[in-house]
């Protein structure tokens, strides 16, 4: 099989945030020090090699970037300051763009301007649409809600459906790429047997705990912040999709929905604060280099949570008009945020458990092949 080499690959990856790929001289420290690197999924050194050789088709099939939680240990220990951790991060961005069938993700990653303009444009369109709808059905002065919950929920569910569709297509593409890299297709029984891994890793993020902070203690702090963000997101999505009316119409209630809503907001805000603090301070290795998409992600999320809380506060204090305006502003953030999901960093929430599941499937398949005496490696593999 002829191998295609992309000589511009490293330059291409630089727009995704990679640095110093060529510094790597393959001592193997990073792969051996990484708590997640193991057996056939040894990384990050091998990824660096593929990058240096420009083998983009092989890189496309890699699951290893998703097995990395970016503790930064490899980057600290790297004798060449090749920043393998940061390169795994940029590989994730590159893969998100590769998996994306529309090509929009790649545009966003390459150019901050494109991303900002698109987000602003969608926000304005949403604002204009909702405003004209609201004005034709009620009045912005209140006292009743200017935008009926059912309308908002329709808009939301429609957007969510489109997003979900894209996520599914992209996830299938990812699985297709990964399995293509194996050589022979795994038996369907293995998929079934390992399926539990998907929800398990999605909810627990257990592997993050294997990252050792400074080589000794487990990264509980990081795990807590991350778990907070995951559950904050999950709570908000469930509430908005199914309980939007209860969530906002009841002004004085203290039911379970309200407690969950407040909990979600607190979790999200805490996560945002910690991550922003880390990214601005740049003291941790994982936050030393921030891509523009990382910052937009944080700020947009922050904007949504803050306007959400603010509109709620206004509504409770009886300032109907103010509440309506802020609510509109809030939705102007939510819709672009939702539409951006399939093209953004956010997708690691899906890809990571999926990769862990697929990795386990591939591992099992290889082990089965090994047992039945077939060659472990496909003939095309060369030691890198």
């Amino acid at each position, binding site marked *: 099989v002829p191998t295609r080499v992309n000589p511009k690959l490293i330059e291409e990856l630089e727009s995704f945030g990679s640095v110093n790929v060529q510094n790597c001289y393959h001592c193997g420290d990073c792969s*051996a020090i990484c708590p997640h690197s193991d057996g056939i999924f040894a990384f990050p050194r091998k990824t660096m090699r593929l990058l240096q050789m420009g083998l983009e088709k092989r890189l496309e099939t890699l699951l290893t970037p998703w097995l990395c939680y970016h503790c930064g240990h490899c980057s600290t220990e790297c*004798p060449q*300051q090749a920043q393998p951790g940061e390169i795994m991060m940029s590989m994730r961005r590159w893969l998100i763009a590769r998996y994306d069938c529309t090509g929009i993700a790649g545009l966003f990653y390459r150019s901050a301007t494109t991303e900002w303009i698109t987000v602003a444009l969608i926000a304005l369109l949403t604002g204009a649409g909702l405003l004209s709808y609201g004005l034709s059905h009620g009045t912005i002065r209140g006292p009743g809600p200017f935008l009926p919950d059912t309308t908002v929920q329709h808009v939301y569910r429609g957007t969510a459906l489109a997003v979900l569709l894209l996520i599914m297509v992209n996830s299938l593409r990812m699985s297709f790429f990964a399995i293509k890299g194996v050589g022979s297709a795994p038996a369907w029984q293995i998929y079934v047997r390992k399926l539990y891994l998907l929800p398990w890793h999605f909810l627990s993020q257990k592997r993050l705990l294997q990252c050792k902070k400074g080589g000794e203690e487990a990264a509980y702090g990081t795990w807590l912040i991350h778990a907070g963000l995951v559950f904050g997101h999950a709570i908000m999505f469930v509430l908005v999709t199914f309980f939007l009316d209860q969530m906002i119409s009841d002004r004085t209630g203290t039911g379970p929905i309200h407690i969950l809503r407040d909990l979600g907001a607190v979790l999200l805000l805490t996560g945002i604060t910690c991550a922003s603090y880390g990214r601005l301070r740049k003291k941790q290795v994982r936050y030393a280099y921030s891509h523009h998409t990382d910052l937009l992600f944080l700020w947009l999320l922050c904007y949504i949570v803050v306007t959400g809380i603010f509109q709620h506060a206004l509504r409770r204090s009886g300032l109907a008009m103010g509440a309506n305006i802020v609510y509109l502003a809030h939705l102007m953030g939510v819709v672009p945020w939702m539409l951006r999901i399939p093209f953004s960093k956010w997708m690691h929430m899906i890809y990571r458990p999926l990769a862990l599941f697929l990795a386990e499937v591939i591992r099992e398949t290889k082990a089965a092949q090994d047992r039945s005496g077939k060659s472990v490696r496909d003939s095309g593999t060369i030691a890198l």
Partner: protein
Amino acid sequence: MRTGIYFCLEADDNLDIRAVSRYAVGMPGIVDIRWFGIQPRLDAPSIAEMLKRKNVERVVIAGGRPGLYKSAFTRALALAGQDPAEVRLAAFRPLHESFLESMERIKLSIACAAHALPYPLSAVLVESRINPATLIIGGGIAGIQAALEIAEAGQQVYLVERTGTLGGHAAMFGRTFPALECAACILTPKMVAASQHDRIKLLTNSELVQVLGKAGSYRARILKKARYVDEKGCVACGLCSEACPVTVPSAFDAGITTRKAIYLPFQQAVPNSFLVDAANCLYQTNQTCGACARKCPNGCVNLDEKDEVIEIAVGSIVMATGYDVLDVHKIGRYGYGKHPNVLTALEFERLTNDSGPTGGRIVCRTQKFSGSAMPAEWTFNPLGVSPRRIAIIHCVGSRDANHNRYCSQVCCMYSLKFAHLVKEKLPDAVCYEFYIDLRAFGKGYEEFAERIRQEGTFMVRGRSTSVTESGNGLVIRGEDIMSDRLLEFPVDMVLLATGLIPAQGSEELSRILGIACDADGWFTELDHNSNPADMGHKGIYVAGACQTPKDITDTVAQASAVAAGVLRHISSGRSWQVISGIPLKEIEARSKSLQE
């Protein structure tokens, strides 16, 4: 000629770019000065545009490694329609920031390049009175070799050594690579010859404290520390040492054995006389004890001896201060200091040495139980268990941005030598070499590496990451890149091929002498290719590993080269005019005369 100066710096160049630019602007013919940043990526067509706009006819690339950018500029100059041969390089090694002189050198190298004058031709010789005596600092193999060469030629040499004996690191080695010759058999005769030579004055236990004067007539003040033992009278019977109550780690044995506060550095020490380690001697610290003085049958021990400062007049100075070994405690992941059987290269060198603590038997450190109250001690017992699996980790602290950027040059070869010694002494043992790149670059070295491979040593490409303890043994973890797998397996002993660093105090010396160190602290030669032993036309020369890590072969070669330089200096009766004193006009004139 319309000349453009372009700076392409390396990350570690400390350069006051403004000062240099201000100087360069003043030179005639300079039409363009530009700073391209650190390790720039150059695009020849756009540079060509730039050159065309300024109508540049000659390009000077200035920086740490200007040769890297030569091809781009050559192409650009050709594209701009000029003679592509007119690309000149002004190279300056990253220099220590504390040196004013280094700035002068940078300016000079740029001026020379701008006038197409080869840099080494820039200095001029002037008649001067030259003191024929030479001061050599450092009594290792480099210092001894240079001293013998100069003294044999009939000139006076003062050989100053900081420790109590000649020999330096070379005396600690058992065998040399690649021929596996006995190191002591090479060195010991030289040491004895140096000590007995009429024209070599040995000053052991001494340090240089001050230097006055200029090339050809230096006055050096040397602190001769008290030895507390009469060198002439001592017969090295060792009774004083037996009486001494203080026990400290032996530096000669790389800390794996102990010695007393009054000691003979090693059996073949030159001068073969005991000395007192003032920092640990009870008499020196709190005026008690004095057991050695009472015990000495010849009455040679005088614990009240005082340090003295002597002044000598010399014409040339040779730096041969050698190296130290990186402190591996800094690199926590190999567990050095925590696990008793993780050894540095020097420790293993002493262990395998036939005159070492086990008589050359390779054994694991074992715990000696000396009563329940005392903490158990880990020592090398000559009757102890031999390791069955030994791992050697290369590049420990070398080629590593977190420690030393440079390659320590000798580690690959001595690691291969260790593998051979292990195979020779323990035929059943398994030996693993964890390497990144195997640098066997000398005469017969590659063949030696090939031989070690054939002896059955496992060569693992991939520096291992960590050494941890499990049960009784050690577990080493690393990536085997050639066969694409992660390794984690038990070994009995781990040897760390520790990198070399400039000898302690070399920065102080460079300050005393006003000579340049590079960013890593190694002494800087005048020109790497054409003048590797001269330190700047000041009658100061550099030999051996204090310039950059070097093996014995290269050290001895350079020491001899230094001797040639010193002797030429003495017999010609002419000194180089100090470089920073050369005015720009002179450079122009010389450049013109060369072109004619």
